[in-house]
Structures are given as structure tokens and as C-alpha cells.
């Protein structure tokens, strides 16, 4: 089944980045030439260009001069934007949202079936939840006192309790959750979505990664990178404290210098373009300089939290609690402002690699979970809950999907040290909220100890397929040709979970 050069997708032809004349006057094609270009730009078509093909890749129709222009979804989208709140380190599901009374009954015992060794070493006995569970809201959902602010919003959440993953190591787990592969170098979720859909706001990046005040998570840039997709679709990383690199005008230049640089550049480029009038890449490059100029205004503007009223700052917790919490709260405010401005994908991190911080860097809690989870929860709970409540109040959840997630769960039993819980790849909980999903709903179950997902098991592929579906994308048809394969966010697996959809 060699690719027939004549089998070209009509979509995405404009992404022939350079030397693309197809948009001009319907030119005839030297078939092989076009095919070569399509392949070069990862646009090999398998669907032969026939209209309404029922399967096969759907190529986004990307205008190289405006790679971020909004594009049509595969089907009507429930959610136009997505806010991912990612909690590196693995949040203990049995201490937060997955209520397991059996743990209390078996507390201190080591029944048969507990493995001798898990990720970090020898195991200890079963431990009851470190925080009390209480019923919340109309739904009566049982959640723990570790996250009371989030618990109060349980009626808005759509929990998935039956998640399981492929690895019990953090970096691979982060990679798997955010890119669909445990190895590095694959496009992140945000890159896939912006590649497919572009963005509504042309003044701001399409995909923003807000790193934790303590630094990047363990997989670093891989969590929001573009992998082998064009670099245009990588996440731009900045947070409330640190603007994007090289955004500001250098101190060596005055505003007038900047203007003169741009004017001279425009003149030089215009002259050059005359010699290569057909070259869209050159035109695209000129356009990005204009966009960069606009970003120099719009990004500082969106980062400026001073206009936020005191009541909002208080609600988010910008003025109270630990330094780390206040910084994270500012990131939450920034996230809301970005969503408000129409940024397509915002990925907000609550935790870093294990080297920064002040005794606590992320949710990893191999020892003294009582203390470490509490410290991390103090940072995450109030600001995150305020962010979700604020978005709801402003009506933004009508079109925005919220995804709260982590790479895996923690064990129902303790480690040999008797104070911490080890990694559990076989069961963990995440929740969705907002556009397109059920409210006050819980899907799937882990076993009576929270050790393994058993009822309506949901893989990370299924979870990601569902988020794509909510964004109007078919996870099997959002593909990119790389190195011999049509690559997907979900590899060759996964089904979207219909039950989660409102």
C-alpha cells in the first residue's frame, strides 16, 4: 500500500509552508512534486481526498501565513478551550476523592495479595485515609478534608475513578499522560489540539504552559513540547512571575529603535519577496514578526494582575498562606485571564521536579505523607477551587473544559518506612468539569482498597480520547505522518468514554 502520489488530502494543502501555490488559482499539479512536499510537511494523505471519508487522517487546513488561525473541528465541539490542571508527583486518590472504607477496617494489617515490592522497595501494611472523608453538596460525594475547597465544588465535577496507566515512574508517567507515550519526543496534548484547531485570539499564544513557581515538572518541556509536529505548536511557557523569554524590548534599544528596526526589516523583506513572490514561507515569516510585536503588548497586559479586585485576590488566596501558595494563586489568576482571552489550551502545573521548593516540590509522598500531602494541598486547594468557581461565575465553563489530573495514584498500603505511600499505576482518580461533561457524576470504580481499577476501567488513552472528543476531535483521525507512521496522541489505542459526556 504505497502512498499513491495522487491520493492527496485537500485539507492542509496550505501547510505546504514554502513553495505552495495551490491556494493560487487552482494550478495543475506535477503529482509527484506535490506528494513529495506533502510528505515533507507531514501531510501524506491516506484518505485519498474523497469527500466525507469515514476514516483515515483528517488534515487541518493550515494557512502558513496564519498557522494559529481558528480551524474547524471534526465535529461540533462541546468545549472550545481547555484548562488542564496537572499535579505532578501523583496525588493519592485514596486520601482525596476515592473513598475506601475498607482501608479503615484493614488498617495496620497486611492481608495476602499485598505485593512484597513496589516501585521504591518493600511494602508495609494497609493504612486508612490520612484525612477524614465527608459527604459534599447535593450529590453527597465523599471527599476528604485534605481538599475542602475543591470538595465543596464536587457537584460540578465529573470524577473518573478507574484510571490506570502504563508505568510507575514519574517522568514516564508524565510523558504518558501528556503525550500518550512513555518515551520522550512525542507531541503534547496541547500541541495536538492547537495543530488541529488553531486559536481564537491572534494576539496571544495558542497554547500556554504555566509552570509551577518552583520550576518545571520532571519531564520538563516534553509535557508541553511539539515533538515532531512543527515548532509552531509547542506550548509557550510563562507564569505570573516570569514572562516568556525575550519578550521585552532589550534595554539597549529605545521604542523608537524598535520601530525603526521593524520598518527597515519590512522594507528589506518586501524587496526580497519580490524575487520570490511564490514563497509562502517568506510571507509567513513576515507575519510572525507582526504577531510577535502584538504579543509584546498583549502578554504583559494579560500578566498584569493589578487590575484584579481585592475580593478576587482574596478568593484565590493571593494574599494569604505560604509564599508558594500565593505564587500558585497568582498563576491561577493568570490562567483565568488567559482563558478569558480565548487561549485555546492552558496547562497549569501544581508541582515541579524534586529539586526546587521549600521542603515540598510536588505530590510525591514516599515518606510522611501526612505532612507532605498537606503542604502540597495547602498550595493547591484554595486557589484551584477559586479558579474553577470564578470561571463558572463568569460563564466561561459554558465553553471551557477543565481537566484536573496527575500521572498515577498511590498505594492503599504504606511503604516499608511506615509513613508514606508508593506509586500505584493500577488505579487513580482525575476529574473533569465544565463544557460538555456531566456534573456531580462519578465514573468507574477501583477495587475495595483502591489498589486496582476494576469497574469501567479507563486507560489514559481513553481519557485523552475523551478530552479530544469534547474538543470536537476524533482521536483516531487526528494524525501526523512521522518516520513511517501516522502518529496519534493515543497511539493505536483508546475509545472515548461516552458516559462522561453531558
Amino acid at each position, binding site marked *: *500500500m504505497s*502512498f499513491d*502520489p495522487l491520493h492527496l488530502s485537500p485539507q492542509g494543502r496550505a501547510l505546504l509552508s*514554502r513553495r*505552495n501555490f495551490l491556494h493560487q488559482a487552482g*494550478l*495543475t*499539479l*506535477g503529482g509527484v*512534486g*506535490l*506528494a*513529495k*512536499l506533502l510528505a515533507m510537511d507531514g501531510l501524506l494523505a491516506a484518505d485519498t481526498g474523497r469527500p466525507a471519508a469515514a476514516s483515515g487522517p483528517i488534515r487541518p487546513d493550515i494557512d502558513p501565513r496564519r498557522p494559529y488561525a481558528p480551524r474547524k473541528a471534526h465535529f461540533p465541539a462541546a468545549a472550545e478551550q481547555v484548562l488542564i490542571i496537572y499535579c505532578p508527583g501523583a496525588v493519592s486518590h485514596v486520601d482525596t476523592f476515592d473513598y475506601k472504607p475498607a482501608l479503615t477496617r484493614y488498617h495496620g494489617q497486611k492481608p495476602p495479595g499485598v505485593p512484597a*515490592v*513496589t*516501585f*521504591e522497595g518493600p511494602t508495609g501494611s494497609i493504612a486508612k485515609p490520612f484525612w477524614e472523608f465527608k459527604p459534599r453538596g447535593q450529590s453527597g460525594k465523599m471527599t476528604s478534608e485534605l481538599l475542602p475547597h475543591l470538595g465543596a465544588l464536587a457537584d460540578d465535577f465529573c470524577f473518573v475513578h478507574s484510571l490506570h496507566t502504563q508505568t*510507575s*515512574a514519574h*517522568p514516564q508517567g508524565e510523558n504518558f499522560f501528556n503525550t500518550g507515550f512513555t*518515551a*520522550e*519526543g512525542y507531541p503534547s496534548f496541547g500541541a495536538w489540539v492547537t495543530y488541529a484547531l488553531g486559536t481564537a485570539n491572534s494576539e496571544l*499564544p495558542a497554547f500556554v504552559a504555566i509552570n509551577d513557581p518552583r*520550576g518545571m515538572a*520532571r519531564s*520538563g518541556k516534553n509535557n508541553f*513540547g511539539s*515533538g*515532531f509536529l*512543527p*515548532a509552531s505548536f509547542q506550548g*509557550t511557557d510563562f507564569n505570573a512571575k516570569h514572562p516568556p*523569554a*525575550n519578550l521585552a524590548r532589550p534595554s*539597549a*534599544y*529605545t521604542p523608537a*529603535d524598535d520601530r*525603526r*528596526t521593524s*520598518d*527597515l526589516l519590512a*522594507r*528589506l*523583506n518586501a524587496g*526580497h519577496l519580490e524575487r*520570490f513572490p511564490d*514563497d509562502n*514561507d517568506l510571507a509567513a*515569516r513576515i*507575519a*510572525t514578526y507582526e504577531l*510577535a510585536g502584538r504579543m509584546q503588548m498583549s502578554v504583559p497586559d494579560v500578566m498584569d494582575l493589578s487590575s484584579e479586585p481585592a475580593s478576587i485576590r482574596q478568593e484565590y488566596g493571593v494574599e494569604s498562606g505560604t509564599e508558594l501558595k500565593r505564587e500558585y494563586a497568582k498563576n491561577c489568576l493568570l490562567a483565568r485571564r488567559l482563558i478569558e482571552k480565548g487561549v485555546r489550551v492552558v496547562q497549569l502545573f501544581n508541582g515541579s*521536579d*524534586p529539586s526546587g521548593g521549600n521542603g515540598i516540590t510536588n505530590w510525591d509522598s514516599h515518606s510522611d505523607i501526612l505532612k507532605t500531602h498537606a503542604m502540597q494541598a495547602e498550595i493547591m486547594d484554595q486557589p484551584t477551587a477559586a479558579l474553577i468557581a470564578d470561571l463558572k461565575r463568569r460563564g466561561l465553563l459554558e465553553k471551557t473544559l477543565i481537566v484536573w489530573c496527575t500521572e498515577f495514584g498511590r498505594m492503599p498500603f504504606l511503604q516499608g518506612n511506615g509513613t508514606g505511600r508508593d506509586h500505584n499505576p493500577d488505579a487513580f482518580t482525575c476529574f473533569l468539569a465544565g463544557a460538555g461533561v456531566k456534573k456531580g457524576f462519578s465514573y468507574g470504580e477501583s477495587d475495595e482498597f483502591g489498589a486496582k481499577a476494576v469497574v469501567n476501567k479507563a486507560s489514559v488513552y481513553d481519557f485523552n480520547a475523551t478530552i479530544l472528543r469534547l474538543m470536537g476531535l476524533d482521536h483516531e483521525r487526528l494524525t501526523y505522518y512521522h*518516520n*513511517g*507512521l501516522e502518529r496519534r496522541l493515543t497511539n493505536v489505542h483508546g475509545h472515548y468514554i461516552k458516559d462522561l459526556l453531558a
Partner: protein
Amino acid sequence: MQTHRLKSAWLPLLFVAAAAAAAVDFETEIKPILSKRCLECHGPEKQKSSFRVDGRLALLAGGDSGKPAVVAGDPAKSHLMFVLRTNDPDISMPPKGDRLSAAQLALLEQWITEGAVWPGQMEAVATKPVSDHWSLRPVVRLAIPPIPARGAVDAFLLAELTKQGLGFSKPAEPRALLRRASVTLTGLLPTAERADRFVADHARDADAAYRALVEELLASPHFGERWAQHWLDVIRWAETNGSEANLYRKNAWIYRDYVVRAFNTDLPYDRFIREQLAGDQLGAGDATGFLVAGPHVPAATVGQEPTAIRQARADRLDEVMQTLGASVLGLTVSCARCHNHKFDPISIKDYYSLTAVFQGVEFGGRRPELAPEHPRQQRAEELHRQVQARRAQLRDRLGVWSEDWGGYSEFHFPARQTQALRVEFASNYVSVDELEVFGPADQGRNLALAAAGTSLVGDQAMAQLRGEIAKANDGKFGTEGWKARAEKGAKTRPWVEIRFPHPQEVDRFRLSSNREYYFETDYLAGEGGGQLPPFRLLSQRPDGTWQEIGDTAALGRKVKADPLLRQADEALQGLIADLNEEGPRHSFVGRFIQPVDTRVLLRGSPETPGDAVPPAGFAVLGGDLDLDSSAPESVRRLRFAAWLTRPEHPLTARVMVNRLWHHVFGAGLVVTAADFGKAGMTPSHPALLDFLASEFTAPSRPGAQPWGVKDLLRTLVLSDAFRQDSAPSAEGLRRDAGSALLWRFPPRRVEAEVIRDSVLLASGKLDRSVGGRGFRIHDVKKTYAQWQVTDNHGPQTWRRMLYQERMRRVDDKIFTAFDFPDCGQVSAKRAISTTPLQALNLMNSDFIVEQARFVAEEAVKGAAPSDHAAQVRNGFRLLLGRDPSAAELAASVEVARESGLPVVCRALINSNEFGFLP
């Protein structure tokens, strides 16, 4: 792809013989089950998982899983029975409707036990896999089309162009041609002076001037740097592991230097491949960095679960497969890791046979094996001679002296015969991973090894948990060592006696605390390689009493006090440091381990091992290496390398000439440069590709070196196709919009490296030194921290970007945005994208601000201070290699007057023309 030669001869005897066992009747009892429950998806209509049930051979062969569905006589090994019985929802069969009944299962099982008799098909024999896919067929050299042309390349191209009513464009103007050839061959823009000279030469004799230019560029030391960059891209080579800690791979860059040297010295490509696969056996130990080019997860991040440890090892071997597949084979080998390849005739057995070739390869470092003529070895010899001279000085003046070799310390003393040595440490705590003793008889033989019969004795009371004294002479370096602690204020501090089995002549004592850590890690906060306390060394007299040989603390004081001694000591330490930097030393170029048996891992999982496989190449290409699983480690790689570089191998030459074409013309004849399989593209000019492949392995020019890369590149860049203009034409665009037929030279964007290097060249700041340790842009970090970029623009970074330490997934905050690969996945070609971050970085970064100023400083030279026009002209010549037009001059002079010349240079660096290959 299995093909079946079915014989239709009816074999009544066999059938009758089976039937005589009074058992299952195929036609009435088995065939109905298969027809009803399996045939819809696994028959003539559909072949899900490439599996069919409508023939005995098909059943014996099985499908994508790589397991035979039926093993005659052995239901337990028959995958068919497994999928019919398993409850695993992913693989249980049939996927819809009821499960097969117990009675049906019993029938099938009995049928298999009885030999799976299928009347009429018992003599059918599976032939070995064959393929008619173009890239797996032999290279065929066709006649050069009889078209008037400069050379064969042009004739093949014109043959296709004329079919479309097209021809080549007019020749490119000399400045464009110079820029094109310079960037293509060396990755650097020409200097303004070179441009003037070329234009003048070109006016006299265009062809001669261009030929001379090409020779000059091919001979440039920067040629190897440019082509090494392409090769390192494909195999995603980097100087960190990736994964969580993303640790630095110490001295990995000696492999980068190897690749640069290979291209510069025009090492024949077959030799280049053989050395990268088995350089340890060929005097090029630095070349095996190829094998461990990919990322890997270090043990600490894998965790302690045995399943995770096995999976991680399988993943590391797969990285080797990906490297080999993308770079040399041009096949997506890894697709056969879990099941037979969906498109290409590579079976899961082939995949694991190939992993068997590399079963002895492990990620890590070793001291590279270098031939005597290797430059690094030659330098080491020279330094060794100087070290000996300095030692002689110290021997004369002191008798005993210490040497710090970084990973370990040595104490030298006059040779003496003794049956034991005693070391007394001058601190309460000591941690030693290994101590060694050498004598004059054999400077390389460690006499302290337990394996040599030597025993260690220490104070039991000071022993620490898991720090047994025997660990100090077990021949193993690393975190496991002897650890001893004396109580605070105790009279006796840690000591050890080294008792030889019989008296030995000794003259050197060596010890280290964690040699492996020193060798393997770098740039980590709080890791100094482990400090050793001072000690006193004694030897035992025949009567059992002890005599002091030396005391390192006292020795240190003595050296410090005497200027002459201090000078001699410092000179020696300086030489040792040079030797550690420039000689062969422990480097991340892979290490070799005892290979274990290789098994097919069903569904890619180490938890479901299948049949054992021998080391071999692909069956479809006759990959039998005549080896079994007892074959020595290095023999596997050597023999595979020989198989891979046979001139008649259909892929090796084709893939490389296509890669060279790709980097010269911007797209390969096969556009999918790393996939020559069925999912890849077919060649645009098959005859030309084969002509070049044949010319590569068997050059027609008398005396030409087979597999010569420079020769092949010379052929390409001397063609008219390369020398023609790149401007568009209406007719060309109408018939071949992508310029794939090469009616013009296709212009394109240059890579991150070309932009950065050329800016430095224009500013006069480029340090052109070739090779050696790279420059750093990041901090010293804690083990599990992320790298932070701390200086991406200072003077130490003013080398070619090839020498910027290549860190996986680290954003350098300037040029990474220009589609610089993140080195996570193999990358046969870089994406070319346009993002506002590129614009911001190239307008506002410290690097550009500074360099724009430096270019301006260069441009001012030779122009009167008030002569803005001359300065602007110089700026244009430095960056764009041409004079400005009248309008450009006027506009630029105005900017220079108002904002200064640096602002003009900043605009020029950002111009499309600067980053464009015309």
C-alpha cells in the same frame, strides 16, 4: 510476508493414516467451526491481524502476533487455543458472540494434537519470505539517458523534466551560488572577501571558479562539522540521558568528534558504519557512541519492580533498533516489536533476531579502544612521555609522590619486595570503592585483587553496614565499597592491611572512593568525585614488623614548602589533567555486557517471552549470520556490520545517497528519508537513485574510493541542477509546483545552526576551532533538577553551534525555537515552522543584541566615522554578502543616523534574506 506454495496433490495415505487414529474429522468437525466463527475476519474478505484460517499453512504461520496459530501436535503452543480460551478482552477470540463451547474447544485441541490434518494440504511448504518491494530488490544500474547534459545526474533529471515540457533554469548568479554551496557543504555563509573573489573569478571562468570553490569547501574542516550535524540529527544523539534527571553523559562528545573526523577525512561509508557498530574491535572505540545515541532511563528512575527493570532493558534495546533503522536501514524496524510489521516484510522474529545482535550492548561508558594512529591515542603517547619525564624528576628528588587522576589517586614509591602493605587513614571515616597495588613487572596488573589471592584485613569494630572490607578489592568500582568509621576521639583510625598470597615487588598504590561516579556524571552540584583523607602507607618486613613508605600529609607539606618541588608537582598534575582531557578516557560511548539468550517477546512484553532466536539480519534480505545464541558478543556486531555493508545490500547505499541528496536539494529522491518501506514514499527518480547507489559502491571513475561521501557530494553539487537559478517561473510552477523535478534549485530556510554560526562569522567573533569539549549554556544542577540555561551568549559560546552541548529537551531560549530537534525521537529531517517565538528571540535576545553591536563594530572598520553609507554598505556585505540597493542604502543610513548602526545590523540579521538559502 509469508507466501505459501500450495501443492494440490491429494495425499490420501496421510489422511487415512491420521483418520485411522479414529479421531477428529476435519471436514465435518473442524472446518465448520473455522468457517462459522473465524472466516469472516480471517479469510478471503478480511485478514485482520494479517491472519487467515482458510489454509493449513496460514494456520501454521499465524498472524501479526508472530506466534504460530497452530503447532501441529502441540495445542499448548498453539496461539489459536490461547486466544480462544483467554479472558483478556483485548485478544480473546471470537471478539463477538458466544465463546466457543467446551466441546468445540476439545475438538480443536484434539485435532491439533493429532497433527492438525487438513486433507489436501499436508505437503504445502512455506517458502522463506520474499518481497517485491522496490527498496528490497537489488540495485540496478540503468543506462544514462541519451540527453545532452553536463553529467549523469543532469541527464536523469532532464529525462523527467522534458516529459513535462520543462528544462533547467538559467544558471544562478554567482553570489547566490556561492552562498548556496557554502551553506550546503560547510554550514557557514561566505565572508565578504570570499564573495568578492568568487565573483571576480566567476566573471573570468565560471566553471573553473565554481569547481575550485567546491574543492575548497570539500577540503574545509568545517565540511565535517556540517555533515556531522545532519548525522547526529538522524540518530537524535545528545549529551544527556533524557528522562527525569536528564544527566550529562560524560565525554560523550568524543563520538561527535569521531563523526566530524569521519566526514572530514572522507572515511568510506561502509567503514563508517562498521566502526559505529563495532569500533571497539576496529581501533575506533569512540565510534560506538552511535549505539547509545538514543535516550535512556537510568536505573534510579526505573524503580525496583522486576517487571519495570525488564521493560526498561527492552526499551533500551529498542532505542538501538530505532537508531539503526532510521539511519542506516531506512526501515521502521520498531514497528515489528510487538507484532509482525504491518507494511514491510519484517517479522517479530526478525526484530528480536536483530536485538540479539546487540544483546551485549548496554547504555553507559567505557574507555574507548583506539588504534595507535588515532589522534587521541597519539596525543596520549606524547603526554605519557612527558609524564614519565616529570615522574623521573620527582623520583630523584623525593622518592615518593602522589598523583591525582580525578577518579582516583596514586601513590608512587621506590620498588620493594613485601608480603603485605598497610594503609592508615588520618580521618575517622573512610569510604573506598577499590584499592589497587601495582609493581614494576607489569604496570597493568592489579596485585591487590581478591581474585589474585590477596586478602584485606581491617578493624571489625569499625565496619559499617553493607560496607564490608572485601568490597575494596573485588574489582568493582562504584557506590558499593568498603566503609569504616572510628568512634570520635578513638586512638585508632580506620586502617587496612593488604596481604598478598606471596611476597610481591610493588611500587604503586591506587585508591578511589567512587570512581564510577566520577567517570559517569558531570555538572552536578555537590559531587566532587569523593575526597580521600590523607594516609600513611607501610610495608611489612620479612620479620613481620612494619616500615613506613610514606605519609601523604607530610609529603604535601614538603612539596608546598619547596618552590622547585611545587613546580614539578604542578607540572605533573597539569600533564595528567591534559591527558584526562585529550587522551582516551572513560566516555559515554556504550559498554558491553555478557549477552543473555534473546527471545521473541510476544506483544512486545518481556513478561511473555516466546521462542529463542539467534542473532541475525532480516530474513527477507538473507540475514542469516550463521550464529547461535552462544556467539560471542563482539562477533555478533562484527558479522552483522559486514552483512549490512555488503555492496549488494539493497538498502545501505540507497538510504545514504538519498540522505546526501536530501541535504543538498532540500528533499530526498525518496522524501521519507528514514522509511524506505511500503508506508514510505516511492522514489521520484528510481533510475537516478539506483544509478547513484551503484556509483556510490562501485564508482566508475578510475581510482575512486568506493563508498566515498565526498565524491558523491561532488557529483551532486557540480550538476547543473544544483547550479541553476532558484527564481520561480510561471511554467515551472504550473507543471511542478513543488520543484520536485528540479526545474529550478528549490530555495529553502536555513537551520538554527546556520543562523547562529553565520552571525558569529559576520561579527568576527566565531572561534573556528574544530572538535573538543563543547561549550555550556546551562547551570550546575542537583541530580533531579531541570537544567537551567544560564549563559547562552557569552564569549565561551562563540563557537559553532555543533559544539553547544546537546541537551535533550532543554530549550536554549534562542535557537531551539528554530525547529532544533529535542533529540527524543529519531528525526530524518527537521520540520520547518514559523513561530513568533523565533521572531522574539532573534530580535530581543542578549545574543543578538550583542552580536548586532559586534557586527556594527566590524562594519565601522575601514570607514570614516561620519560615513554612514560606507558603514551600512559594510554591514550588508558582512551579513548578506552583497551591496545594498540605492533604496535600501538610503533607508538604512537614516536608521543608522537616528538609532545607530547596531540597529541596522539587527534588522539585517532578522531579514528573510539572511536566513534563506537562495
